[in-house]
């Protein structure tokens, strides 16, 4: 009986020090990643690479981006996507989300002003790594005017997966500010000459794409419940109390432990 009460007691011990902070989903995602050995190792790996120094005084962009691609490719998708798409209600959360993949190295270039979008687009077309990912993104996230809602059916998971696949490529996109969930690559269409339309179409894939926006917003609904149980100490006091009061009735029969394997088998995003 004692072993069943231990988790509940833990929750209460932690309840005892209430911090009245609004829940920050991006912090929760970070903690959930830290709690998983593989995610934690890959996340630390890319941070270490992206914080490094390169010869002319910048950062080792290629190594940083490669480590990022490895993070999203090899990390557990439910955790890596939670880090990238955590829903935010305030600027602190949104700024954290914007900084998640060390954009100062992986996203913004060494020049202070963004280049023309034709540069990363052309680089991507010629890249063995980037080209298929860009095509997958175009296929999964493109608006489909013939459909009733304008987007592919069941599009959310594949679109998000394709978007995550672009992080660490020549056309890495990121959140543009900490006030919204708008995303864009680091480029603009100012100096595009006679390829301006091509430039705008490419940039519009990110900035004027209702289906992509919808998919990113929809991540909120798909917030994996596996995260809730990995994060007991970090739920806000109200939420933790709810868990304890609903759980203590069933504590006699089952222990929290037996719930873990069940939740670990939750379908991936």
């Amino acid at each position, binding site marked *: 009986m004692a072993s069943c009460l231990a988790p*509940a007691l833990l929750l209460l011990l932690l309840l005892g020090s209430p911090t009245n902070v609004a829940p920050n989903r991006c*912090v929760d995602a970070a903690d959930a990643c830290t*709690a*998983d050995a593989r995610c934690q190792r890959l996340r*630390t790996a890319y941070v270490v690479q992206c914080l490094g120094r390169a010869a002319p005084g910048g950062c080792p962009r290629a190594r940083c981006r490669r480590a990022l691609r490895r993070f999203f490719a090899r990390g557990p998708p439910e955790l890596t996507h939670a880090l990238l798409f955590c829903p935010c209600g305030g600027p602190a959360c949104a700024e954290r989300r914007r*900084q*998640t993949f060390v954009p100062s190295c992986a996203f913004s270039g060494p020049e202070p002003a963004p280049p023309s979008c034709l540069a990363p687009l052309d680089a991507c077309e010629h890249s063995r790594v980037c080209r298929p990912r860009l095509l997958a993104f175009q296929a999964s996230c493109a608006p489909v005017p013939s459909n009733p809602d304008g987007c592919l059916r069941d599009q959310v998971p594949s679109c998000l997966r394709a978007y995550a696949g672009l992080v660490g490529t020549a056309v890495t996109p990121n959140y543009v500010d900490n006030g919204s969930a708008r995303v864009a690559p680091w480029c603009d269409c100012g100096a595009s000459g006679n390829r301006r339309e091509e430039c705008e179409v490419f940039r519009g894939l990110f900035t004027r794409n209702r289906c992509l926006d919808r998919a990113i917003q929809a991540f909120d609904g798909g917030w994996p419940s596996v995260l809730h149980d990995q994060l007991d100490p970090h739920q806000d006091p109200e939420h933790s109390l709810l868990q304890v009061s609903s759980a*203590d009735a069933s504590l006699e029969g089952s222990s929290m432990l037996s719930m873990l394997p069940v939740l*670990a088998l939750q379908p991936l995003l």
Partner: protein
Amino acid sequence: MATGRVLLGSLLLLILHLDLRGGPGAWGASVAEEELLSEPVVDRGTRRPQLDARPRRALAGPCQLWSLPLPVAELGLGYTSEETVIFRYCAGSCPRGARTQHGLTLARLRGQGRAHGGPCCRPTRYADVAFLDDRHRWQRLPQLSAAACGCGG
């Protein structure tokens, strides 16, 4: 809401108290707060340690890697962040020292009473820890956490 919380807390504390008096084994070993929150890393796999791996007294078990989830502020290094990091350390008893020539000779001398001390459980490898601080700047703490343990000396 607050009264409910207090009631629930006192109820559980009461049950715990009763249990402590009753059972010498299960709870007695976990009284220290560190043991309560610290869990041995049971396997080298990717899963988090199971909640029911009841930690015995740290020194009674063999030298092994323990992990403790800590808010960054509790590292005591002056950083502020909302994140929690996993701090791993080594603890446990070392019945035998290192199987090196040094270790073998030292063990013999200790047995004869001609040398002091004993083998100690220490990290043999460290790992970096990284987090985003409160000013949204990435911080990297190299070699902060233990990654593997061994009996040295």
